[in-house]
């Protein structure tokens, strides 16, 4: 299995997880993997101070077993958000692994995850004292936005994305439209138009992605509220 970008369809991948079609189920699983593996890995590493080796095994093992045993299809949207369901399932998996004192033997159904990149990110993040649940939510937000940015890169022109990256992603906030115009050799009007277009696309991508990883309208609204930090 490998990580796929968000598919273009707005169909909920959570619904697709219960599909009888194996290929559809695999695509849905890939999308969830793309959205959730890093938050769960970091959750194990930072919130529960697991060693890198432990956290890698836990994350790999969790997703392999979830796919093989189809445990994610048992999700009930009436009880909790999928994000909460996944975290609790991961907690249970970690507790079982701990009790059994065994590690997943790699190979077979292994998933390819870039743990080195996750470790670099952990090293760059500021120390935190929030609860494990809050930490997981924070990393989920970061993961959804990061995936949306990657998808935006594919959907924008080169200049559009470069303007968006320089103005909204870089931490150097002193940059002006005029400086960006000079840097990219375009007019200031083009800079503002490109930024506006990229932001509009980004907004669409984020909301589409959220629709894919939620099962109901109510869950979508609740998760969007959490993602965007809007009080309900």
């Amino acid at each position: 299995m490998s990580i796929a970008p968000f598919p273009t369809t707005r169909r909920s991948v959570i619904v697709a997880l219960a599909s009888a079609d194996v290929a559809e189920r695999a695509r849905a699983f890939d999308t969830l993997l793309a959205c959730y593996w890093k938050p769960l890995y970091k959750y194990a590493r930072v919130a529960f101070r697991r060693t890198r080796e432990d956290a890698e095994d836990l994350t790999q093992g969790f997703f392999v077993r979830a796919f093989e045993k189809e445990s994610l299809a048992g999700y009930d949207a009436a009880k909790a958000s999928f994000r909460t369901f996944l975290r609790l399932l991961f907690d249970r998996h970690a507790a079982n692994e701990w009790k059994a004192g065994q590690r997943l033997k790699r190979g077979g159904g292994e998933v390819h995850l870039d743990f080195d990149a996750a470790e670099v990110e952990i090293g760059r993040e500021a120390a935190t004292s929030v609860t494990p649940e809050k930490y997981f939510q924070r990393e989920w937000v970061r993961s959804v936005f990061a995936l949306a940015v990657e998808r935006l890169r594919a959907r924008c022109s080169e200049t559009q994305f470069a303007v968006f990256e320089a103005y909204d992603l870089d931490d150097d906030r002193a940059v002006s439209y005029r400086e960006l115009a000079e840097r990219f050799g375009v007019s200031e009007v083009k800079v503002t138009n490109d930024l506006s277009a990229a932001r509009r696309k980004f907004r669409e991508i984020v909301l589409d992605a959220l629709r894919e990883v939620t099962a109901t309208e109510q869950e979508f609204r609740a998760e969007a509220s959490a993602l965007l930090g809007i009080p309900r």
Partner: protein
Amino acid sequence: MTWLSDDAVARLRDVAEQPDLSGTRYELVREVGRGGMGVVYEAWDRELDRAVAMKVCSVILGDVDRLRREARIVARLEHPGIVPVHDVGVLADGRLYYTMKLVRGARLDEWVRAGRSRTDVLRLFARLCEAVAFAHANGVVHRDLKPENIMVGEFGAVLVMDWGVARAADHAEERVIVGTAGYMAPEQARGEESDARSDVYALGAILLFLLRQSSERVPRPLAAICLRAMAVEGSERYADARLLGEDVLQHLDGLPVSAYRENIAERGVRWLGRHRALVALVVAYLLMRAIVLLWTHR
């Protein structure tokens, strides 16, 4: 994959919520407030060269029909105490917005904490009642009156804001609990039908809040006005905001109020207070006569 710093995540959150004003005559200036249904921004109207307030439906939680209804309700309430709507439209990203007058001033709770005389507070409250009474006369109930939803302009104008959960008499809707604890009438809290008397309850709670900001003793007639406005049974309250405002003005003018039956002593004290100049004149005259009498009988 791009790594996003905490600051970048915070900016992207703003980007995802920020309205796309391209194609409109407005420029975004800053966010001035947010609620469940939408966000209010200060915007610049390039055509008319003026600042406006722009309420934009929340990208996620907004209810387009409700925001449109709110704009229509406010637009039909042309009154100096109700913020006027200028324009309604749809943004390039599909979100509904409406623009209205940008009110500069302070929220009522902030205004009163700056230390105001009781007379100023009561006069302002009476004007607030007039604005709400106008809405009631036009079949509109606000349903969420509270100090945070009332602005006092730079020159003392009082403006009722946030008509997001207002109900027009000609619009049927499912019964839902709306309002804010502490200002919500009991029937609203129970999810029952609300009417002008529900707003009267909220106004009574606002008057009580205003009076409690001062260490001065609250006169019994004013306390009685609050009690009547906040009666548990709607039928025992003032029938509408106009009657409540009139009672407050009666008190300001030194006249008896409908909510309080005073005894003879209180009536005498009030009469003396109201005719202070006349009483002073009579006392001065009597004193002069006494002095003259004493002088002539020496």
